């Protein structure tokens, strides 16, 4: 008999876990996936692409129904798990019977933060997290509604770009003095701002939202410095919060996220968590790459193999608003490190490498990201880079040629 394994959450982490399990432990578990979104798991990263009209909504499905079926997965989407009974090893599902588990994996993801300001509950205040949000935003854009996006991180920029491409006049307000401050240094952020502004998006920095005006619907946004922006809609994209309610109520240890060890197991035996809801060594990751690494480790562990997750060196490696952006490691340059910078701003390029102790420790790239993965490898492997320092900025092939010469 296969052991019943239940996955709560039907996102990218869940899909990857099933994929990995199929590779290392096919048939060992009878898998059930419970998700509240009313559709097959899709690539959340591509939601901005859907919003921008670059991809059709159905095209972002990760796997067809047959794929799940072929792997013997019981898919329960559009179903909400309401409770985990740790003692009885059951998951309760709204309006349905509970299902038992031998192993439980939480992949509940995260939710967008809503700012605690007056007017946050008005009609026309949205978030940008799931497929349903995208449908609503597309409607706004189609009506050329004026939209204020709150938050100049990755999510906010993606929302702003998608909305602008879909036809909405967009103003992005950001609390900090630069965009994507957790991934970019000041010059990179400045270049990104210039490149995003070229796409017709207005960007306000040092912009702290004070309140949202409106009787019943959004009419404008007021900032703490008194500036006021007329708007028909507001999109909150100012951070996410791991979804931990289910775990917390079940008495599973939580902190900011569901606390897991190096095999992704929670404090409760046989209950695991991966993806954005998990907190490993104090870190909740908000990116897909660590979730995939975690899925791989967990699958091996569940297959009875030795596996251990020791955290991810986070790299941002994406197109943000159509601009290639890469950031990894110590991108600012802590004391004792040196920076090497290549900038060709009119050409849309900014590259910074941080070296310390003869090794590459961080990198920020805007525009030209051809060698991003090589830099990431150098950062992760801590290879000595002193010999290639002169050419490292200009890419792997040049550095290899020079080293060989």
């Amino acid at each position, binding site marked *: 008999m296969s052991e019943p394994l239940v996955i709560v959450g039907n996102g990218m982490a869940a899909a990857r876990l099933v994929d990995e399990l199929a590779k290392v432990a096919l048939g060992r578990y009878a898998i059930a996936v419970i998700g509240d979104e009313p559709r097959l798991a899709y690539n959340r990263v*591509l939601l901005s692409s859907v919003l921008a009209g670059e991809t059709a909504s159905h095209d972002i499905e990760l796997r067809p129904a047959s794929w799940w079926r072929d792997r013997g997965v019981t898919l329960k989407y559009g179903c909400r798990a309401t409770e985990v009974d740790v003692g009885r090893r059951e998951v309760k599902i709204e309006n349905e019977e509970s299902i038992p588990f031998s192993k439980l994996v939480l992949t509940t993801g995260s939710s967008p933060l809503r700012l605690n300001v007056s007017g946050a509950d008005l009609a026309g205040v949205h978030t940008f997290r799931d497929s349903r949000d995208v449908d609503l935003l597309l409607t706004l854009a189609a009506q050329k509604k004026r939209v204020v996006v709150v938050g100049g991180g990755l999510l906010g920029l993606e929302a702003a770009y998608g909305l602008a491409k879909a036809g909405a006049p967009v103003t992005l307000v950001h609390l900090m003095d630069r965009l994507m401050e957790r991934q970019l240094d000041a010059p990179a952020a400045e270049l990104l701002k210039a490149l995003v502004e070229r796409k017709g998006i207005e960007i306000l920095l040092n912009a702290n939202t004070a309140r949202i005006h409106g009787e019943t619907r959004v009419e404008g946004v007021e900032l703490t410095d008194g500036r006021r922006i007329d708007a028909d809609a507001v999109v909150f994209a100012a951070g996410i919060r791991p979804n931990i309610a289910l775990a917390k109520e079940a008495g599973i240890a939580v902190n900011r996220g569901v606390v897991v060890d190096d095999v992704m197991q929670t404090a409760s035996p046989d209950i695991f968590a991966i993806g954005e809801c998990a907190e490993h060594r104090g870190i909740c990751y908000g990116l*897909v790459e660590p979730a995939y690494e975690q899925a791989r480790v967990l699958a091996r562990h569940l297959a009875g193999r030795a596996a251990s997750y020791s955290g991810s060196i986070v790299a941002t490696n994406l197109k943000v608003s159509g601009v290639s952006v890469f950031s990894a490691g110590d991108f600012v340059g802590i004391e004792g490190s*040196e920076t*090497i910078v*290549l900038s060709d701003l009119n050409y849309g390029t900014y590259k910074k490498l941080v070296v310390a102790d003869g090794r590459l420790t961080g990198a920020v790239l805007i525009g030209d990201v*051809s060698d991003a993965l090589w830099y990431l490898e150098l950062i992760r492997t801590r290879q000595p880079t002193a010999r290639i320092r002169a050419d490292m900025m*200009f890419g792997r*092939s040049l550095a290899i040629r020079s080293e060989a010469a």
Partner: protein
Amino acid sequence: MTAVDPHLRATKTTCAYCGVGCGILATPDGRGGAAISGDPEHPANFGRLCSKGSALGETLGLENRLLHPMIRCDNGTMERVAWSDALDHVAHRFQHIIARDGPGAVAFYLSGQLLTEDYYVANKLMKGFVGSANVDTNSRLCMASSVAGHRRAFGADTVPGCYEDLDEADLLVLVGSNAAWCHPVLYQRMLVNKQSRGARIVVIDPRRTDTVGDDDLFLGLKPGTDTALFSGLLVHLADNGALDRDYIERHTSGFDDAMARARSMAGSLSATALATGLSEPDVAAFFQMFATTPRVVTMYSQGVNQSAQGTDKVNAILNCHLATGRIGKPGASPFSLTGQPNAMGGREVGGLANQLAAHMGFTPADIDRVRRFWKAPRIATHEGLKAVQMFEAIARGEIKALWVIGTNPAVSLPNADAISAALKKLELFVVSENVVTNDTVDAGAQVLFPAQAWGEKSGTVTNSERRISRQRAFLSSPGEARPDWWIIGEVAKRLGFGAAFNFASAADIFREHAALSAFENDGGRDFDIGGLQALSDEAFDAMAPVQWPIRQNAEPQARFFAEGGFFAGEQKARFIAPETPALRTETTAARPLRLNTGRVRDQWHTMTRTGMSPRLGQHLPEPFVEVHPDDAARHGVADGDFARVTTDYGQCTLRVVVSERQQRGMLFAPIHWSAVTATGARVGSLVAPLTDPFSGQPENKATPASITPYEYVFRGFALSRTPLELPDHAWWARVAVNGGHGYLLADNADLRGWQSWLGSIAGDDLAEYKDFGGGVYRAASFAADRIETCLFIGPARDAGDWNVVKGLFAADALSNDQRRMLLSGKSIDGLANAGPIVCACFGVGRTTICDAIAAGARSAADIGAKLKAGTNCGSCIPELKRVIAQTAPAAVPQQLAVAN
């Protein structure tokens, strides 16, 4: 080659550079430039040109050209004035100084690059009308020792042989001549002889130059010992029955004294070897070759001439040819190779302080003859001051007015920093020039006259083999540039000598010059071109290259002296007993080395013309000092690093070239760089101003010197469309490059200083690479896709590849990849290039994806299967689909075509 309008006709002219005097066909392109090729009919070169001559077309631009007369204002700046004002001013000031201090208080300093007609007018004005012989010329630095040697031996400044002798000789001896670099077309002629007829070549030079072929005999003698070598040769010839007793008897005098001196100096092979530092077998081999080869030409150049015993060296050589009668015979002659295009023409008009005119000196008869011919009111009656002494008199304040025409003495004279200082003392300092700035102009010239340049001026020049050729104009004069003869004539008229300077054309002047050469010349003077004195203007214009003498009603004559007929007493040549060789200076513990100076292949003089050619800038772009490996080790200098070379007169900072070709104890540095082309590379400032007692030529090749390493932390280069004003702290050398101006740099200042310097000159479209911790700063500014300015500074090993960046700078537009990689300073040829990244997760580029599509991939899944692209986060899948949509259809017709 530049494309040329077929309607534009080629003009026959002669090269602007050395004394070979090659014929050139210049075809104007109608836009101020011209296509240059060798004139196949000119007997000096038969169509061949050297690197410098071939690149003349790159030197015709008007950048840095002086286009209008200028006068220095009270605030030190130069302001444009009308011709009449400038001429009036100069004439008035000359007049005043001559009236107050006498004619000895004024001087002209001329150039071997002037045309004969210009030279003639200047010489006539000073010697016949101002009444001073203070006319000297940069030829003093070049072949004055040959002139003096010729005159002592032959009684006249006669070059006995001709270029055909180089074709017909069986032994070619080069003494102190790097002909491969300095007279390349003649050298090629010698190589043809060597290959086709088996002629042997012997090179005598302290430095193993490119003139030495693998199978040539090279005699790397100690500097200044040439006289001992040729005295030893004279002894050897006598002791081995190789003398022409009959020739000596009939056509010479003084043989016994000369032979006695030779025996006392170098009476045997071993004594010769000892005196010269050569091995006995090498000496013996040379002597035997010379003794047994009747057809021998001995060529000599600056290594002989630029010496405090240069005249004796010349005579020691001439003695050997006179003693064997090998002079003026086909394939047998001594041969002075002159450095400048018209050094010979200058000698012919008498434009040297120790000549009067037309190969006449300061004998009472000559003075009287010239006075009558010129109807001269105040003819000079004694020799004037030769170059080095002339500038010493300027420094002492004795000469108060100087007119420099077509030369750059603040660079080229010995002790050049003292020359610059002396020039500042002048009450009147006039310069006729092509360029608006050079070290001489910048030394405080008060009046600048814009002279016509090569290609604009018209007249005659004479080459090393006495061949007079026309230099013709093929470009119109830019701005208000005028012929030098016109400028001098206008000043003469304003001094009240209008009647004697009423020349309407160069042809007018040439006819008078020719007439003077024949005036009362019954064959007693070698220089006679009386046959040309009645040339019509048309005939002058059409004049084909012709060798002098051209006596009226006489047969042409290619050579002199085969049957005697010298111009000294009793028509006999004189053997000269030379002094024992001894350099004028001694090395000391503080100055343990000797500095030799010379030229490089692709530059000429002070680079005011060759410095404009990108092609010529490629060969040796930086000022350098060559040093033997043992000396380099001893003095702690390394190849490629910098060194300070110091003499009692000055200091230079030069790149070090360590080379076995250099003799131990000797340094070599090229003469070309000046304050406008480099910092700290005015090699003339190092040279001792010690001169030969007969010729007045300075000893430029043996100044005691020391060398010490000088460290620059940073090296690099800059390229710009417009000339750059570099920071004062930097060492730099300017190099002409395609599309603008290049500067090779070295520096010790902070990199941030360079960043702010560049920021102050570059535009907004700026790319920068900063690795301050690694000591690197590179930047480029752009206008559209073209580089405007770029700067590469870094440690020596990491400054960037000058040639690669120069190539990109020459381009009108950079491709995306070129711009992306420009600041690497490295060639991207052969580098794998995946193109712009599409799949960030797996680093898959557009080019790689297109290759996969071309190989058959038709969906994102296909591509994912092949390249993994799109299989991780999947965010590139939309772009993958777009790439397929854009790229794949192109493959369809191809497939159809195949199917059909």
